[in-house]
């Protein structure tokens, strides 16, 4: 069964460092998303991406965040200068035609020290 693959599964970084989280969405999907989940809290929307550009972003997705689809298969989330409050589980998701059912990856746990 096709799946969304995320790397790394866990990353520990120092505050102020740049982090890149990587995702390989399902190959024939068209819409790509990043969500985050702080421990014990709800899944929060960060950004959606379609046709090589951001289609929606939340208030959380400020200038410290950026997304890219550099090579037609990978979808990356970059955090330029990490803060302690960026510690969370980051989920990549994708949807196909109809843009309805989100298929999630297993997540990347980011710990900022």
């Amino acid at each position, binding site marked *: 069964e096709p799946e969304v693959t995320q790397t790394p599964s866990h990353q520990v970084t120092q505050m102020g460092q740049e982090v890149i989280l990587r995702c390989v969405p399902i190959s024939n999907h068209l819409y790509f998303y990043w969500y985050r989940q702080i421990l014990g809290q709800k899944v929060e*929307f960060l950004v959606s991406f379609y046709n090589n550009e951001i289609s929606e972003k939340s208030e959380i997705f400020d200038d410290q965040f950026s997304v890219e689809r550099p090579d037609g298969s990978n979808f990356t989330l970059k955090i330029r200068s990490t803060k302690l409050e960026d510690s969370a589980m980051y989920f990549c998701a994708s949807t196909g035609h109809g843009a309805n059912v989100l298929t999630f990856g297993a997540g990347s746990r980011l710990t900022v020290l």
Partner: protein
Amino acid sequence: EDQVTQSPEALRLQEGESSSLNCSYTVSGLRGLFWYRQDPGKGPEFLFTLYSAGEEKEKERLKATLTKKESFLHITAPKPEDSATYLCAVQEGGGNFNKFYFGSGTKLNVKP
């Protein structure tokens, strides 16, 4: 304002004790309502999509129903392996069609 509210926050059941989880929503122009299961440290796993009031979907011991303002996930004769957090999400119609709002989830614990 929260668009999706789930209750209860946590639910403990004995194996075989049936119950229901609730998801109420306030988005206008619902495009779809989704139920996901999330195990600790894992990504949400899709269970059901419901599109219109009156619709029902079933899978093993789970049955999801939808009204104009809420959805229920009924669990019949649960087993310990049904223990997980169940998430509800709604997709808003119109221009924000690719935005999904998640509830905080109901953490279900089924004791043998």
